[in-house]
Structures are given as C-alpha cells and as structure tokens.
C-alpha cells in the first residue's frame, strides 16, 4: 500500500451568520468526496456532532485550516473566534460577515438596547406585556443558567483575532472555495498572510460586460424596480446604483448577469479603503448638474446611502457605526 499523506484537519464554524456560508460549502456537491478524501472534518456544527469541549481539548495548532464564517456580535462568537484561532494553523475569514461584518453588521446602525426593545417589545408579532428580556445569567433550582452577552457593536473577525486569509462573498462562490482548498491540499505556495483569496484584484466594472459609454451623465436615480432595465447598458448609466465601481471582482459578476445591480458583497478592491467614499466619488462624477438645488433633488433619490454603500461592510468602514 502507498504511504498515505496525513490528511488535512479542517474545521468550519459559524458565528453571527445566516447559515448560507456553511451551505455554500455543501454546494461543492459530489466534490465533497474529494474534500473528505483529502481532509478530515474535525469540527463543523451545521453537519457534525462535535462539541465545543472537543475543540477545547485539542492541542494548540491541531487544526490545519478553519473556515470561520459569521461576524462577532456576542460573547460566544468572540470566545469561539479566540479558541479556534489558538487551535488553528490557517484561519480563514470566510464570507462577508467574517470578512467585513456582513449583513449582521447593519446592526451597527443601532445599539444593543434598541435592538432588544424592538425585538422583545415592539415588533408586530410580539406580545410581551411583562417586557421579559433574555438575561445573561438566570438562577434556577438546578443552578445558574447562562447565555451569551449581546454586544452593542458587531465586528468582523479581524477586529477580534489575527486572520490569515479572507475569502469574500455572501456567500463565497463555491468554485473559488474549491480552488483555494485545492491550493492548500496540494501544498501550492500560498499568498502572503492577510491576502484576500478566491477573488480578483480589480473591480466588478472591469469584468462586467454591460455596455459603458464614455462620459455618460445622468439626471435621475431610480430604484431597480422603477425602470425597465434594457438588459445591456451599465446600470449606473441607466441611473440605477450599482456597487460595481467599489467592489472586488471574483464572483463572475453574477448578480449583473442575473440583471440585478451589484450590491457589493465581495467588499472593496485592494486599492479602495472604504466602499462608501468610493461610491460617493463615482456617483459625483456622473451627475449632470451644476445647480445646487437641482443637485439636491437628484441626490434625494439616493434613498439610503449608508445602507446601500455599506450593506456588507459597515463594521469595517471608516465610520463603523452610528453615533449614539
């Protein structure tokens, strides 16, 4: 029998996530057999019955690669991030939430208190006259029950622990994951620590095949459902906000191919510090007016700049949360 190379030890964990990232891993379909042939899954809460205790008992650096998805929004997320960092050689921030804060990061428009009030008192489907809230600690005859502490601020993984690589996307394209995984398994030379992997370096606009006109200017912005997209010309030139100019390529501009503007899930390109400021500049350069009043009217159609520009990246933005 051939001498077997020791199998890679792989872990996948979800923190503040929707579960889509874990599903994107399952989307490798029958290739999962190749993955399992090359790697032992030592921890993966969505699919396998390992406990936190099992991870705690592993020696440090025991896991070769952890794909960490989800943002850090409570003390359990933070504990697991630190624990997995200690037990893992290569820690990958997998998906937008872990990379930049993602959709859960939109909670940074509020405080923990505001969120609890909405959820446990005000939401249309809530009846809670005694205003009962979850308590961090609760005494019962059997002892003390504890649930995680809910933080005010949502953070991406790199604000909590050291991260080796970032694999962007909401969720990442499964093909990109396979490429990265294959590179690790075959022992190919890995890019420098801190790199974004499984994505391009240019902007979506550089790959997108929609028709662009030189110096096209516009006088009105529309929400996507307000116009009949011609299916061919650049969204921005039709007055529909598209995050393409500020977003890293790598997904194969899949939303645009589906006739929807890019929402920015791959995060900013390498030379963009902040997706929002890049978009403000991009928008400023296509508006066709010099009159302040008209300008104000045109910009009033950019309904929610903060939520649009930072849909996936608020906790990593220059201003990473709303002022209280």
């Amino acid at each position, binding site marked *: 029998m051939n001498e077997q190379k020791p199998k890679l030890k792989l872990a996948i964990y979800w923190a503040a996530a929707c579960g889509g990232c874990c599903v994107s891993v399952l989307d490798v379909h029958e290739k999962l057999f190749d993955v399992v042939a090359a790697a032992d899954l030592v921890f993966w809460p969505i699919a396998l019955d390992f406990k936190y205790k099992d991870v705690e008992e592993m020696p440090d650096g025991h896991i070769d690669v952890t794909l960490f998805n989800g943002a850090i929004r409570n003390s359990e997320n933070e504990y697991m991030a630190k624990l997995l960092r200690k037990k893992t050689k290569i820690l990958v921030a997998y998906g937008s939430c872990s990379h930049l804060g993602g959709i859960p990061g939109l909670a940074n428009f509020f405080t923990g208190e505001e969120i609890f009030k909405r959820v446990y008192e005000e939401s249309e489907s809530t009846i809670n006259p005694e205003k009962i809230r979850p308590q961090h600690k609760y005494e019962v005859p059997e002892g003390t029950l504890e649930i995680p502490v809910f933080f005010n601020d949502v953070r991406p993984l790199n604000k909590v622990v050291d991260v080796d690589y970032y694999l962007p996307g909401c969720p990442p394209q499964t093909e990109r994951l396979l490429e990265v995984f294959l590179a690790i398994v075959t022992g190919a030379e890995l890019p420098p620590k801190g790199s974004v992997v499984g994505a391009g370096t240019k902007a979506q606009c550089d790959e997108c095949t929609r028709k662009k006109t030189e110096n096209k200017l516009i006088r009105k912005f529309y929400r996507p459902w307000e116009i009949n997209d011609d299916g061919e010309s650049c969204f921005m030139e039709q007055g529909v906000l598209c995050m393409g100019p500020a977003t890293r390529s790598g997904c194969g501009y899949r939303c645009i191919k589906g006739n929807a503007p890019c929402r920015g899930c791959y995060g900013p390109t390498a030379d963009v*510090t902040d997706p929002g400021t890049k978009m403000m*500049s991009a928008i*400023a*350069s296509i508006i066709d007016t*010099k009159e302040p009043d008209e*300008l104000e009217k045109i910009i009033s159609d950019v309904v929610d700049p903060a939520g649009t520009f930072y849909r996936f990246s608020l906790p990593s933005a220059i201003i*990473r949360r709303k*002022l209280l």
Partner: protein
Amino acid sequence: MKFKPQIIAFLCNWCSYTGADLAGTARLKYKPNVRAIRVMCSGRIDPTFVLRAFRRGADGVLLCGCHPGDCHYQEGNYRCMRRYHLLQKYIQQMGIETERLKLEWISASEGKQYAELIDSFTETITELGPCKIKETMENLT
C-alpha cells in the same frame, strides 16, 4: 475646561488657500482652531479624507474651493459640491450633525471672507460641542 474645537479645512491651492494667505498677510484676526490642508483643487478632496478627519477626532470639517466657474481644472469644484451633498446625507445617517461639514467658495481676493468664515464656523462648532464619533468607536463594546 472650555471646549476648543478642532477643525480641519481643505483648501484648494489656487483660490481658497491664496485667500487664506491673504487673510494672514493682511493681518486679519480670526479664530485659531483651524488646521488648513492645501490640496490642488477642491475636486481632489476624496470623501475618504473627510470621514477620516471625523474618525480621528475632528469636530468640524470645512471644504473650500474656487467659486463656480472659476476652478482651474474646470469641473473640480462641481465634483466637490456633488460629493459634499452625498457626504451630508451620509453623515446625517451616521448621527453626525450636518452642520459639522461645510462647503464654501473662497476666491484668492477674499481674505476677509475667509477670516469671517473661520470665525462663524468655529462658533457653530463650539455651540455643537465635541463630535463623539471617535470616542464612541473606541469605547463601545
């Protein structure tokens, strides 16, 4: 202790910075709270500069360029104006008072107007008090 606002002003080289210079050579007295940063054109003021200024503790940010039609690069000040309007909308959403960001046109001969602008803007910011975005971001968990 009395609050001493920190204000960052981005001034275009050709008009506004020259105007500020004139205020100096004319020995006009105005409030000392402004740190001026010279840029070649107001169109060079990347929104990143403005947000970074707030992030690092500025209480107010002032953008100054040539009057409409006078930009030495034709369109720079219009570009600046459009960015400014977007920035206003954005900072409001982030809970930063829109009064903390101001755009004014100052020509090379308007030393006096520059001095008055600095005084009135400093006053506005002093009344608003410190901008808390830096503190919030550093201390909130």
